């Protein structure tokens, strides 16, 4: 069973994304945290297969967090969430080791689906 972790401090967006994922992929487990420390704890305890990572987090930069997670758990897929669809952001996400790059205001759901399936072929 695929576990997905959402790391996002904005409650409204976080819950909307979770609902959307739950509705779309009933077979996966979606968990959510609001800051970096909780994220690291969750990773250690639940070992998710995929993480949606916001850049702006309280006290920590999501990109740096991504780099750290990738160093310790290279098998976890990480998708960066951002407000800005700018090449600088894309380049930064790539440099820090993220697997995907999603712009919050224009979520491409087919890409999300493809990503989930690539990680967990069992998902519908």
């Amino acid at each position, binding site marked *: 069973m695929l576990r997905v972790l959402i790391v996002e401090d904005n409650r409204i967006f976080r819950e909307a994304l979770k609902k959307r994922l739950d509705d779309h992929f009933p077979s996966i487990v979606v968990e959510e945290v609001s800051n970096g420390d909780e994220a690291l704890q969750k990773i250690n305890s639940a070992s998710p297969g995929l993480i949606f990572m916001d850049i702006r987090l309280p006290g920590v930069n999501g990109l740096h967090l991504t780099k750290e997670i990738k160093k310790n758990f290279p098998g976890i897929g990480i998708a960066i969430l951002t407000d800005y669809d700018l090449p*600088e952001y894309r*380049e930064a996400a790539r440099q820090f080791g993220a697997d995907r790059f999603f712009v919050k205001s224009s979520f491409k759901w087919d890409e999300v689906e493809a990503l989930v399936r690539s990680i967990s072929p069992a998902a519908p």
Partner: protein
Amino acid sequence: MKIRTQFIITMLLFGIVLAIIAASAIITNQQREKVSEQEKIASSIAQGAGELSYLANDYLIYRESHQFSRWQSRFSSFSNQVASLHGDKPEQQVLVRNIQANTLRLKEIFDSVVSATKNSSQYQNDAPHLASFQVSWSRMAVQSQGLVSDASRLSRLLHVQSGQLTETRTMLMYVMVVFFGTFLLANYMLTYRRILKSIMRLQAGAAVIGSGNLDFVIEEKKNDEIGDLSRAFNQMTINLKAVTASKADLETEVIHRKQAEEDLGRQREWLRVTLSSIGDAVIASDTEGRITFLNSVAVTLTGWQSEEALGQPIQSVFRIINQKTHKPAENLVERVLREKRVVALANDTALVNRDGREISIEDSAAPIKDSAGNAFGVILVFHDVTEKWRAQMELREAHGRAVWLARFPDENPNPVLRASGDGSVLYCNPASSERRGWTCEVGQLLQNELLPLVGRAMTEREEVQQDVELGGRSYFVSVTPFPGEGYANIYGRDTTERKRADDALRQRTFELQQLTETLEQRVRERTVELAKANETLRQLSVRLLSAQEEERRRIAGEIHDTLGACLSAIKFKVESVFQGITKTPSAPIESLGAIIPVIQEGVEECRRIQMDLRPSMLDDLGLLPTLSWFCRRFQTIYSGIRVDHEVTIEESEVPVSLKIVIYRVTQEAMNNSAKHSKANSLRLSLLKTDGRINFMVEDNGQGFDLEKALGSENTNRGLGLTNMRERIELSGGCFEIESAKGKGTIVRAWWPI
């Protein structure tokens, strides 16, 4: 006279008399024997003379030589006998001399006869010869006859003498016997009369005393041994009488004794109370050093209770040490018993009590003696001298302090004197006698400079102070009078140095005043400048406020025009969807889909405004991506200007605080250039060289009059330049702008890292 002495004297007398008598008898006997021997010699001489006569006749008749030699030998023995003869009495001596003379003559005659005989042998029977022979022969006969008669007479005389001596000897024997008898009689009389009678008298007296009459006194007549015995006997009687007291005496004695015991008890109680009440501690011990008594003060000082201490060795209760060395002090009891006299304790002695506390004490120990003077114990008397010592110490300290205080004026480096009312010196300290101009000695008059001051102070009865020049130095002299005591104290203080310092100070003050005036002038000038600068600052502040207001107005306008319009459009569209749903339920899906681009536009606008205010990219990604993004965006907005940018610094080398400064300066410089320069090429560079960050924005525009722009700061452009400068300088950097009409503009800034 003692009997022994009497006896010795008697024996001595008897012995002497007896020895005299015996010696007389012996001498008499010897004389008698000698006389009888002489008598024998005399009779033998008489006989010898006859023989010689006979032998001579033989020779004359026969004229043979052997007859001659016989005569010769007989004569020699005869002459020997004559030689050994001697007389004691005058008559005897005359006879002896006659015999000796006759003997010599006999020899002569015989010799003449012999020689005549020899001559006549040739003329035998000669007549003349015969005649001479007859003559010689008759002479010889005469001589012989004389010798015989003399010798016989001497023999008779000696015989008579011998008889007399024998009689004397016999009489002496009688005398000795009689004397011995007399002595025995006299000795008996003495012993009987003197000794036996005295003893009998003593015996009778002893019998009387023995019968119980102790009052009897034996007569003591003589001063001999018996007398001594009688006296001893009498003394014995007296002693016996004293010993054998009567019953009544004994009862009285018992009463007396009880009385004495009660007295003794009272005395002992009194002694105990006395010893307990005295202020000194008292400890008594026996000769073994074991405690027999200690009073209450001793209990307090030693910390031992009386009943615990009794019987203890004195060293364990009365533990004393030398306070300085902390070694145990010598055992006093032993020393007292050894020296048999009072011993005082050494100084610095401390008692260590039962709790281990040390108490300074003074002490003496004395032997306790009985009436015979034998020590049967030791008594220790001591008291706490801690307070005394402390008092002594305080006294010593007080004395030391007094001495110390007395030195006070001597230690004063300034002159201190005391002078009597008439101005003669009573005291001067060493400083005053050492200083020049102050030469003064006790008993002399004060120097002229000081004399009137003393006079004035004494008259006015109050302190006089005055500056006085002495020995080339300045002194501040104060004279304090004590009119009641009749003297005044003079205190001088050397003020030469201070005066010099005062002069220097005055000079400095004058200089300072001048300096102050100059400074005040400058302050006035600066104040004018400051007021001017203040005015400028106020204007700047006003412009800053209006610029801020302008910025707010712009943002509000933008939000109103874009976001507000978007949200209003969305609202209309959603309302029409709701209306549509009620009329035709199939339509809404498409209508709702049409809303999404509007929302998307609103989101984009929102993001743009946000990026204008402060690009979140600066915080998310850093300065370099942000500059890159800004240039790209600038390029899209101002497509007529070609933008180059060169960055040779690493993101991590830019201090975080500088990032917003560099971004804002870039924004300001490039926007200025775009708005005012009409340039078609612009170059941004951010380089790291020589340990500093170099920033530059350069355009090829028309440039501007720098003086004018900065001088008239009421334009927005001037404000922008000022903003840049302030931002850069506040962040520790330097700012430089280079521009001239038609020559483009270069904005430079650099920060040390």
